[in-house]
């Protein structure tokens, strides 16, 4: 039986973070009253003329640079024609023959391996309006409601080469891409608001073959997890067809998240013919070297560079550096905290563990954390100075999230200072020894593990406030007498 190689290419649309639309001055803010952010240009009224937004060009160039693309000095806008109610002009302004950016590459870590995924192109285009389907689903809708607020928002379309070799790689690529677009503040990449969308092309070929097999295109991928699941399903479906000597049809398939399957979307119409033509309303876009260079100079430190710096400068394990650099805000938070507490690994443990856990529990992003880096620093200093144990510190952090108070305030209010002085500890330890003759005897017979149990009892009796190292030392001293 033949071994099959999976070939995947992705097409990603990302909305650019501009204030106004790409060819008109309408507001791009999400969630406005339907049809309240529209004008003759983005509604395609006769005679209205598009004027390109400089910031949209700048952000698209930024995206291109972050993806290691060549930025083309001259690019061109084309009309892509199709009839659909969300497209009021009956054509979309896009870039076909001459995209703004091309020939890029993204490096990916897949396990221990480095993979390079080619970027065929990054081009500028405009968003379509939004259809709200009335009824249970797209299939049962009797009619649709159209809101053109989204029509004309600036988009980049990013097309990869067919270099992706598994569903997992596809997900990793998207995560990396999202990180890059967020770092560069090109897009907010909110899949739930539709500001990042992805379609996937997938085919199989016998291992060792260089010709491509027949591909299918998968749509309706609403999360990175959906991308991976849909591609796993589709690879499996194609593999079974091919092994049974059946054919894969070149078609568009719709991912059904609930059923966990792809379905054929058989079009009644003929294959699409977009009849691209240069848009006579728009001059070719000229971008000079000085502009590109100034954008390049102002790019922020990108995730790979930041990750390497975290490993080298802070001596963090690669895993920590990976997690901390997944978001620019998270990385900034970590660094601000290290300014306060010069023990990077301690900071890293707390940021990746407790802080992220509480943020998730409170449904907050790191940039709106109620516990600022300085405040977390205050708490970690209390650990370093043995004022609180790690266990108590976790409770303190929980209070900090709930009340917004500082660590010191909470510790003082609650009387949570760690008991390290010998007199106070001795009373507790004597009590624990008296109440646990069995484990005490075990320890004295040489079962050294029993000490752990006894320390645990001391912690319990002190409501977590005893200093565990001290308690351990004192217990040993007493029992070995």
């Amino acid at each position, binding site marked *: 039986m033949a071994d099959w190689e999976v070939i995947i290419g992705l097409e990603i649309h990302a909305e650019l973070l501009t204030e*106004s639309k790409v060819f008109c*001055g*309408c507001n791009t803010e999400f969630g406005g009253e339907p049809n309240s952010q529209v*004008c003759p240009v983005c509604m395609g009224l006769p005679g209205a003329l598009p004027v390109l937004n400089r910031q949209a060009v700048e952000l698209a160039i930024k995206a291109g640079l972050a993806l290691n693309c060549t930025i083309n000095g001259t690019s061109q806008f084309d009309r892509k024609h199709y009839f659909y109610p969300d497209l009021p002009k009956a054509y979309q302004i896009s870039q076909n023959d001459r995209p703004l950016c091309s020939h890029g590459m993204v490096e990916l870590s897949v396990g221990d391996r480095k993979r390079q995924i080619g970027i065929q192109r990054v081009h500028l285009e405009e968003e379509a309006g939004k259809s709200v389907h009335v009824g249970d689903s797209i*299939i049962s809708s009797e009619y*649709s409601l159209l809101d053109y607020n989204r029509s004309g928002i600036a988009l980049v379309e990013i097309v990869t080469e067919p270099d992706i070799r598994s569903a997992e790689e596809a997900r990793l690529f998207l995560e990396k891409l999202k990180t890059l677009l967020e770092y560069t503040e090109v897009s907010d990449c909110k899949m739930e608001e539709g500001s990042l969308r992805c379609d996937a092309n997938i085919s199989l070929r016998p291992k060792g073959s260089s010709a491509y097999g027949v591909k299918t295109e998968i749509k309706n991928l609403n999360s990175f997890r959906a991308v991976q699941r849909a591609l796993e399903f589709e690879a499996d479906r194609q593999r079974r067809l091919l092994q049974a000597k059946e054919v894969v049809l070149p078609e568009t398939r719709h991912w059904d998240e609930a059923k966990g399957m792809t379905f054929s979307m058989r079009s009644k*119409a*003929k294959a699409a013919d977009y009849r691209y033509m240069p848009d006579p309303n728009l001059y070719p876009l000229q971008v000079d070297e000085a502009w590109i260079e100034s954008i390049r100079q102002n790019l922020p430190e990108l995730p790979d560079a930041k990750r390497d710096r975290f490993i080298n400068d802070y001596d963090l394990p690669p895993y920590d550096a990976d997690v901390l650099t997944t978001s620019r805000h998270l990385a900034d938070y970590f660094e601000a905290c290290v300014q306060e507490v010069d023990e990077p690994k301690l900071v890293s443990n707390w940021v990746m563990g407790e802080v992220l856990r509480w943020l998730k529990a409170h449904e907050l992003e790191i940039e709106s954390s109620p516990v600022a880096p300085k405040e977390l620093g205050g708490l970690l200093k209390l650990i370093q100075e043995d004022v609180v144990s790690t266990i108590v510190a976790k409770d303190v952090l929980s209070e900090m999230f709930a009340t917004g108070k500082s660590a010191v305030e909470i510790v003082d209010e609650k009387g949570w200072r760690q008991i390290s002085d010998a007199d106070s500890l001795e009373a507790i330890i004597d009590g624990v020894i008296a109440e646990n003759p069995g484990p005490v005897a075990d320890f004295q017979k040489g079962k050294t593990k029993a000490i752990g149990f006894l320390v645990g009892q001391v912690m319990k009796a002190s409501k977590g406030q005893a200093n565990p190292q001290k308690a351990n030392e004192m217990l040993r001293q007493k029992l070995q007498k």
Partner: protein
Amino acid sequence: MELSLKEMEELALIARLYLTEEEKKILPQQISSILDMVHSLETVDTEDVEPTIYPITGSGVLREDEILPSLAVKDALANGPDIVDGYFRVPRIIEEEYES
């Protein structure tokens, strides 16, 4: 070479043009003669000629990223034949049917 009736109908379909029987008879001939005329360009040697992207030279004007007033909602909806809750209502649009 004359366009076949089938090609003519496909062209009309993708452009959403609805042709009368009369038009279906005369148009293939007319379009073919236009195509023949355009094809004559193929005889010109363009080996060392840069493709023309745009007929006039110059570069476009860029606007700053500033929000300008939009239309009032009632004006935006004024031309719509079927308005529901501030939306334009249109017949079911999906042209595809599903099968597993």
